[in-house]
């Protein structure tokens, strides 16, 4: 295999492990929200503001239908995580998850933290992500496929879509009427403040760190400059694997920082699963094999 081809190839196990991780995360995420989703779909229909594929609807579907679709998504998530019947389940699960999360976001509030999860699932569902580390591979009982570009491009596309999310966030910050003033940190500082005030008036509590750090303006300038650099230069992380991993680890840390300072949980990112495609996860399997 030439060095160029090696560089654009990946083992099937790496992609398979990423699929299992994304599927496993989604399963826990949806299972823990099943009761909440049942309540949300029974919200006053006047609050319905469809987004994404749900825009095809003029009014909400009857709650029992929405419940059935949520439960079907849970089942497809489990099969997707296991890698069972992937050629059918992969695209079906992508469609069901896109629908379920879009429907959940169609009640006057969009939760942007789920965007990356939907796109990553779409990519995994459309690729050969169950050629290894899957029920399909176990039942086929064949040798593990050789590293191939077909296992590489989905990982690259997942990484590219992740960088796009951050790039869009960065562009949104500097495309405001007052342009680059975001780097001063005032907007970030006030965003944290207003978030804390909202929490307090709705019976929750602002993060104690928000109060503690608020007086330190210079710190927010530092945070603002740092996050903006990581966002606007996000596509550069695709140029080299080491640089990409460093970028991914930086954002992983940033999301935990946001959790501490603002009390906002970007669960997919904080779990690390959102950044899994940057890493050679198959090495974990080697470690397990050696341990045996």
């Amino acid at each position, binding site marked *: 295999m030439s060095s160029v081809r090696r560089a654009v190839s990946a083992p099937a196990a790496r992609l398979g492990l990423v699929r299992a991780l994304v599927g496993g995360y989604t399963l826990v995420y949806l299972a823990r929200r099943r009761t909440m989703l049942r309540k949300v779909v029974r919200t006053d229909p006047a609050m319905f503001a469809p987004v994404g594929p749900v825009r095809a609807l003029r009014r909400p579907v009857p709650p029992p239908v929405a419940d059935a679709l949520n439960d079907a998504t849970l089942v497809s998530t489990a099969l997707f995580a296991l890698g069972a019947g992937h050629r059918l389940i992969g695209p079906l699960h992508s469609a069901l998850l896109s629908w379920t*999360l879009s429907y959940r976001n169609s009640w006057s509030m969009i939760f942007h933290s789920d965007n990356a999860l939907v796109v990553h699932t779409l990519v995994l569902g459309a690729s050969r992500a169950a050629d290894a580390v899957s029920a399909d591979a176990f039942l086929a009982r064949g040798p593990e496929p050789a590293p191939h570009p077909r296992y590489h491009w989905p990982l690259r596309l997942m990484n590219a879509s992740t960088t796009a999310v951050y790039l869009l966030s960065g562009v949104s910050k500097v495309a405001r009427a007052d342009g680059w003033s975001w780097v001063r940190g005032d907007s970030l500082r006030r965003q944290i403040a207003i978030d804390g005030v909202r929490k307090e008036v*709705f*019976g929750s509590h602002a993060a104690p760190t928000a109060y503690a750090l608020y007086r330190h303006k210079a710190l927010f300038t530092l945070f603002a400059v740092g996050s903006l650099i990581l966002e606007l230069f996000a596509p550069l992380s695709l140029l080299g694997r080491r640089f990409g991993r460093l970028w991914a680890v930086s954002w992983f840390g940033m999301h935990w920082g946001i959790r501490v300072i603002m009390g906002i949980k970007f669960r997919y990112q904080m779990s690390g699963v959102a950044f899994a495609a940057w890493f050679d996860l198959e090495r974990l399997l080697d470690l397990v094999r050696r341990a045996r």
Partner: protein
Amino acid sequence: MTGDLWAPHERRRATLFTVLVMGAMLWPLRQHLRPADRRVDGFPLSYYPMFSKRRRQHAHVVYAVGVLADDSRRRLRHSLLGSGGLNQVRHQLYRVAITEDHPQQYADALAPRLAAHPSCTDLVRVEIVRGEFDLDTCLLDHRVEGTETVLATADIPRVPAAFVIVEPSEGMQA
């Protein structure tokens, strides 16, 4: 076919899919070219409008307050107002009270729900208020107090004790 080769059309499909996904991801950038009031957010494709908003020292928040018989006041927890979490409830309240200008409608619908809630037995009235907060004061003094403007108010219906129907037990029968 060996494992080293692409299946027919596989590579072309992968390229096309990649272009479509990345094109779709970046498509919301065009929202920045539109006037601010005509921009539309979406899911899962977004231009992340929350980062475009200008944040000032003074901020307005619309929320609900419960009033007790002695006129003391208590801010109502989001879970009493609706499901889906704090931010969803906040957006829904803002939509009805400000965007659609029907705060009374929200208060009237909320009052009977509060009447049925065990944690709200001490409330006699619910108010939808618009609070103005000086963010610096709130965060530096660790005290979230603002100036409230009442947008709507609704009495919480209570069943008078005299009208409570008591099922007669065997011991009560003559």
